[in-house]
């Protein structure tokens, strides 16, 4: 009886953690934390990275990684804003700019997908390099100056207006989340994605077009990165050469904290969103408490380590190993290997 209750609690542990965290901050910050305004702030703050997460989860599920989400965002923002400026802030120019911005993400995704599905290069290295290239292009496009689009009324509406009291970027995040949720859970593509991520060779021998799965994953990642870049430019009413820099680390941190395995094939978009919310709420609470921002990073780091530990523990359980001290497991693995080596 008691065990069942605990099991249910464990299954919904992410929700439990969020509620507990909110309770702690609610006690520490009476009247400040539990307000509609504050929750609006939290959601607004995580919306940019949240949109990126909706895309970047795809490559991670394939045991890949896309470190260019921020680079795509920056270049998309820069291309869009320069287009708007060169078209005299007209509605047509704005639409064209948005399309070109999304196109940047699409191209970046197609490139990564083609290369990574064809060649056996670590995605980490490739996207590390292309990320530099993208930021290099941003500097060329912007001429290393701020591109001001204060006069683009239509464009800035996205970042500044609210519908039913909720900021527009939060709606965009919601739409992206729904898109990813449906893709991962209700389409053949999603099923195939988990197969390829979980065992590429088995997927290939089941007739799954592995290349197609990989290419689409990086396209989604690139486009969502670009989309968040447009939202960011709209919020700031400008594009800068270092826009969104470093966001990719926060995005990957949230995905890992949310229980998506870097080894691929396991994890959910709900989990990744939990990761984003956890980090978002924590940052917000610490800010309200007046904790110096230096400590924010420190705490974030500790949370990531905890998440990785949980991931390792549960994957051990998955592999059927009994519970035991890490040391004993290591020893057992060592013995096993030496026995294997000693002859077949």
């Amino acid at each position, binding site marked *: 009886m008691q065990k069942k209750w605990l099991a249910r609690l464990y299954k919904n542990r992410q929700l439990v953690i969020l509620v507990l965290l909110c309770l702690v901050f609610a006690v520490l910050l009476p009247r400040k934390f539990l307000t509609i305004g504050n929750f609006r702030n939290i959601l607004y703050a995580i919306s940019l990275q949240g949109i990126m997460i909706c895309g970047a989860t795809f490559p991670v599920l394939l045991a890949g990684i896309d470190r260019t989400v921020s680079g795509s965002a920056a270049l998309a923002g820069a291309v869009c804003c320069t287009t708007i400026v060169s078209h005299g802030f007209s509605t047509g120019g704005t639409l064209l700019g948005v399309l070109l911005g999304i196109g940047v993400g699409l191209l970046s995704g197609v490139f990564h997908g083609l290369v990574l599905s064809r060649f056996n290069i670590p995605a980490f290295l490739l996207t590390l390099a292309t990320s530099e290239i993208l930021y290099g292009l941003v500097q060329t496009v912007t001429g290393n100056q701020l591109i001001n689009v204060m006069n683009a009324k239509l464009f800035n509406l996205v970042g500044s207006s609210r519908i039913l009291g909720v900021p527009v970027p939060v709606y965009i995040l919601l739409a992206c989340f729904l898109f990813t949720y449906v893709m991962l859970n209700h389409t053949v593509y999603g099923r195939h994605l988990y*197969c390829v991520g979980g*065992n590429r060779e088995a997927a290939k021998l089941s007739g799954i077009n592995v290349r197609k799965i990989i290419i689409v994953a990086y396209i989604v990642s690139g486009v969502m990165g670009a989309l968040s870049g447009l939202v960011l430019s709209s919020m700031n009413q400008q594009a800068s050469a270092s826009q969104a820099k470093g966001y990719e680390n926060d995005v990957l941190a949230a995905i890992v904290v949310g229980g998506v395995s870097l080894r691929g094939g396991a994890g959910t978009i709900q989990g990744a969103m939990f990761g984003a919310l956890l980090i978002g709420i924590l940052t917000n609470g610490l800010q309200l408490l007046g904790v110096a921002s230096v400590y924010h990073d420190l705490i974030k780091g500790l949370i990531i380590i905890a998440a990785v530990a949980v991931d390792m523990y549960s994957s051990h359980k998955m592999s059927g190993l009994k519970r035991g001290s890490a040391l004993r497991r290591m020893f057992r693995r060592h013995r096993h290997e030496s026995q294997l080596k*000693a002859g077949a």
Partner: protein
Amino acid sequence: MIVEMKGIEKVFSHVHALKGVDFSVRRGEVHALLGENGAGKSTLIKVLTGVYPKDGGEIVFDGKPVEIESRDDAFKLGIAVIFQEFSLIPTLSVTQNILLGKEKQKFGVLRKKAMRKEVAELIERFDFPLNPDDIIETLSVAQKQMVEILKALSTNARLIVMDEPTASLSAKESEMLYRIIAQLRDRGVSIIYISHRLEEVFALSDRITVLRDGHLVGVIEHDDIVPDKVVNMMIGKELSDATASRNLSVSSARTVLEVKNLSSLGKYENVSFEVKAGEVVVLTGLVGSGRTEVLRSIFSADRYDSGEILFEGKKLPKSTAKVIDRGFGLIPEDRRTQGFVPLLSVEKNVASTNYDTLSKHGFVLRRRERELGQRAVKIVDLRPANPAVPVGNLSGGNQQKAVLAKWLTRDLKVILVDEPTVGIDIGAKDEIYNFIEGLAKEGVAVLLVSSDIAEVLRVAHRIIVMKEGRIIHEFHEGVATQADILLAASGIRAERKEA
């Protein structure tokens, strides 16, 4: 005698692996250890090299009784093992690898010149085609093996165990290894040689010890080595009729799969055969003879260079998805790495080959997917009968049944099966044979790759033997026995029967 093992006993939790085995090796002889899979060869070697503690018996090394409790103990006595998988560090040089852990130094600084000279002398003494400065990963498999041998010799090894040393060598490289072995023997080094290639065992060995089911069957002196006699010792006479031989016959059904002059450079050459509806054709031969490669080419998992594959008289497309669409299925060689996705449930794994019927406009029909999972569990009698369990958590036999279910839920015409019962307990093995036979009865063409001779004789309608990428023998009609197949596979009776 360099080593004498007397009355060695080894019991694992359920299996009595060694039942009072005597085994001795003379100074400067090549001594082959023969036996079928599971006869106890590996266990005996592991006891000798300190990997497993023995449960009874004694070991005398160089006239003195010894206790070998670890690899290190064996190493200190001068017993070295050359593994199939090398223990070399690929990015380091030949010199660094041979002297690994035995580096010469002065005041903590490596004496590189002295080390290089020592290795150069060693290489020269045996006249190996090696350079002390070569980086391991640039070397061929045969050269790596030479480095392993030199590594053993540099520690003054007096007894070298070679476990399937020629498994991944070309014919020419094998020749070179035979010369090296002869050279070592002439210098007084003793060699324990384990190999499935009977012809080379017969050519090389001074003596042969045969094991079967953990018993010593006999020791054969050089002059008494007669292939037929040795093979009979290996397989034993007290076998049941069911697996000792099999009546073969050519089916008169229509041809479903036809392979014509298929070649793939460096893998197999000029392979031709056909499989008829309801027929079980077995491709057998030693590991590395090209059987698996042929299977994978048919399934379009690998390319082939020339030749034709016809399905019901029409060319088979070169795309796995399209081949599956024509009604093909593949049970791959290594189920863990190729057969299933361990983290995903039985239901999702089974569904992975079935989304053509489980989806509409790219969206999954969840209800049908679930029904299929439940149906699959019933079809293959999975334990536990729960489609939500991740396949990685199942036992070996049930994992294989889950892989089978991926295809049994489809409308099959041809099934390609590769070593389906490796590492599976006897009960589950039988179930898998029943599925294969059941499929054949329904008219499915079955192409099975297997090294397990009992398995071959259990299910085969016809048997094709491959060696070094070529078909060297076919058993079409009449009675085939274990000895026939073993001798054909090792190339001793290599004349090809014309159909």
